[in-house]
C-alpha cells in the first residue's frame, strides 16, 4: 500500500514554545507508516485573528493555509482548537467567496486532530511511548465540544504500558486559557486555572496531559505559581511518542 501523505500543521504555539510536540507528532505519524511533511511556509491558522474580531486577517491566513495544505491526502493538527478552526471555521469565514468556500470545505473534510486521526483513520494498534506513571487528562474545550475528542486520547494512552489513568473531577471544565482572554483578563483567567489545578492535584496523578498547548501553558504556569514543582504537564503526543 502506498504511504499516506500527511501534511502536519504545526501550530504557532508549538512552533514558538514546544517544538518537541511537533516532533512527537511527526514520530507518531511516521511510526504509523505515514509520509509526513510540514510545509516550510506555514505560520498560523489565523484563529487568534478570527477570535479577536479581525475578519480580514483571519480570511487572509485561512487562504494561505488552504493553499499550503490542500494538496495533502490528510492534514493533521496536534491541537483540537486549531484543528477545529480549520475544519469548522474556514468554511464559515470564507462563506462569501464560493471558490474559496469550496476549497475550505474540501480541506475541512480531510483535516483531523492528531489523536482522532491515529485512532479513527490510521486505527493504530500500538504507540512507541514508554511513559511510566499515573496521568490525568484535561479535555480541552474546543477539541471536546466541537471535534468530539474524548475517547481517542484515552484509547491511545491505554496502549502505553506504564500509563495509569486517574480521571480528575471536572476534566471537561475550561482551564481558563481562552487564547487572548488569558492576556486580556489575566486575573480571571488565572482564577479559573486555579480550579483546574486544584482538580489536577486532587487526582494525585504524576502528570496532567492534554491535547492543546495553550491549555497546558496555562495549567503549568498556574501549578508552578501555586508552588507545585512536581506535577508534569505534557502534551498527549509527547506521552504517546516517547523520546523524540
Amino acid at each position, binding site marked *: 500500500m502506498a504511504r499516506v501523505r500527511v501534511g502536519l500543521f504545526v501550530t504557532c504555539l508549538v512552533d514558538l514554545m514546544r517544538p518537541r510536540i511537533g516532533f512527537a507528532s511527526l514520530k507518531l505519524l511516521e511510526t504509523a507508516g505515514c509520509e509526513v511533511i510540514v510545509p516550510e511556509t506555514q505560520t498560523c491558522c489565523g484563529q487568534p485573528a478570527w477570535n479577536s474580531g479581525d475578519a480580514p486577517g483571519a480570511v487572509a491566513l485561512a487562504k494561505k493555509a488552504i493553499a499550503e495544505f490542500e494538496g495533502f491526502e490528510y492534514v493533521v493538527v496536534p491541537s483540537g482548537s486549531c484543528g477545529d478552526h480549520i475544519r469548522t471555521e474556514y468554511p464559515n469565514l470564507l462563506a462569501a467567496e464560493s471558490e474559496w468556500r469550496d476549497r475550505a470545505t474540501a480541506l475541512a473534510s480531510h483535516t483531523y486532530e492528531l489523536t482522532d486521526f491515529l485512532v479513527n483513520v490510521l486505527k493504530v494498534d500500538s504507540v512507541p511511548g514508554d511513559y511510566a506513571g499515573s496521568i490525568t487528562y484535561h479535555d480541552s474545550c474546543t477539541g471536546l465540544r466541537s471535534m468530539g475528542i474524548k475517547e481517542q486520547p484515552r484509547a491511545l494512552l491505554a496502549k502505553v504500558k506504564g500509563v495509569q489513568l486517574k480521571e480528575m473531577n471536572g476534566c471537561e471544565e475550561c482551564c481558563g486559557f481562552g487564547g487572548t*482572554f488569558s492576556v486580556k483578563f489575566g486575573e480571571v483567567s488565572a482564577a*479559573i486555572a486555579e480550579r483546574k489545578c486544584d482538580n489536577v492535584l486532587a487526582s494525585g496523578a504524576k502528570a496532567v496531559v492534554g491535547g492543546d498547548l495553550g491549555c497546558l501553558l496555562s495549567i*503549568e504556569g498556574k501549578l508552578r*505559581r501555586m508552588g507545585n514543582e512536581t506535577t508534569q504537564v505534557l502534551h498527549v503526543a509527547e506521552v504517546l511518542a516517547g523520546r523524540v
Partner: protein
Amino acid sequence: MEIKSMSFKANAAGSLANVVLQGTLKNTKGKFVTKRAEAIKDLDDFEATRDAAAAIRNKVIDNLDLWLERFEQKALDTGATVLWARDGAEVCRLVTEIAKKHGVKKVTKSKSMLSEEAGLNQALEAAGIQPVETDLGEYILQINDNEPPSHIIAPVVHKGLDEVADLFHKVHGTPRKTDIPALTREAREVLRSHFLSAEMGLSGGNFLVAETGSVALVTNEGNGRMVTTLPKVHVVITGIEKVIPPLEDLSTLMRLLPRSATGQSISNYFSILTGVKKPEEHDGPEHLYFVLVDSGRADVVGSDFHAMLRCIRCGACMNHCPVYQTIGGHAYGWVYPGPMGSVLTPLYAGIENAIDLPHAATLCNQCGVVCPVKIPLPDLLRKLREKQTERGLRPLTERIGLRLWAWVAQRPTLYALAASFGARYLKWLAAGSDRIRVLPTAPEWTLGRDFPAPQGKTFRELYAARRKTASRA
C-alpha cells in the same frame, strides 16, 4: 438600570477579592450544574427536545410582527389592554400612568427583568407609588438599598446567609436569626400585608401565548400567584420576543425551562393567566395590561444576532460559564450577566457601552452546549468582537498589534524570523529557569500565574536543520 459594564475589569477584580462572594459562587456552581445534569436525564431525547424548542422560537422570531399582532388580537378579545413601549423610559411612563389612572399607591411585584432594564422601581417611587418586590431574592435586594440582582433566576445567589441575617435584623428590627425557614417566614409575614393592600400587581412573563392571548408564568415561591390575582389591576411587562404560537408549544418549552434553570422537572408553580376576571369568577384582576417592550429587540430581528432572540432566560449559560462561576453576575455591570448578558448588554445598552463583555469569555462553548434553545453564544460573542473592530472601538494598540501580527503571519520568512527572535527573547527572560515570572509583553498573563519557558528554538528552525542533516546523510 445604570450600566457599569465599562468597568468590567475593575468589577471583576473586586469580585475576585470578595471572600463571601467566592464562597457563595463555589456552592451555587455545584448546585445548578449538578442538578441540571440530573434533571435532563429523565428526558428521553433531550437533544431532539432542544431542536424542537429552537424551532418553536425560530418560528416566532422569524415573523415576529405577525405573531405579535395575533397575540395582541387575542389578548384584546380576553378583555386585556395591550400597550407598546419603545424603551425603558416609555415602560416607566406607561406603568406610572396606569397606576395613576387606577389610583394606585402600592404595587406588588413578582420578578421582572424588564423592570430592572427600565429602572421601574425608581420611576414609581419618584411618582409617589410604592413598589414592593415579593420574590424573596428580589425583596432582599430591595431592602438592601435597591441592590441589583446578580443572576436572572437566583437574584441573591451572591449573598451569604450571614449578610441576609444582618439585613433582616436591621430592616425588620427583629432578633437576628440564621435559620433559613425562619427568615423566609419573617419575609412572608412582612409581605402578607403588602399583598393584601396593594392595588396593582406587576409581573414579568415567561411566555406570551398567541393562540389564547395568555401569559405563562414560571415561579417557585407562589408570590406570582398573589401578585397576579389579588390586586384589581395586573400589569405584565415583557419583551416583544416572548411570544410562542399555540398553547401546545408550552409543553415542549416547559420540559426544558425548569430543568435548564434550576434542575427541576417542573417549577413549584406554573400559571397560565388569561384575560380579566369574568362576572362569575371569584378571583383575578379587573384590569389586565400587557406592556410589550422593544428596548432594542426589534433591531436584533434579522441581524447577525437574530438567534439571541430565542433566549428563554433560563440562566443555564451563566451557571455553566467558567467566567461567571469565577466572578459572579455583578461584574458584568448590567441586568443580564454571563454569556447571554455579554451578548444582550452590547445589543440593548449599546456596543460602545460594553467593550469588554464580548471578550470576557474563553469561548469554551459550555454555554452553547447547555442552552436549551441552542443559541450559538460563542459565535455571537465573536461576531460582536468583529463589530467592535469594524467600528474602531478596540484600543488602538490592540488593533495595530493584531494587524501587524496578521501581516507578519502572511509573510513566512519574516514570520520565521520574528518567531525565532520571540523564542530566544522568552528563553532569555526565563534566565535559565523553566518559567517566566513577569512577562513584559503580556503582563496580564503573569498576574496570577507563571509563563512556562520555551525550548528556545522554533520548530521550523529545528525541522529545517533536521531535514538538512537527513538529506546530507
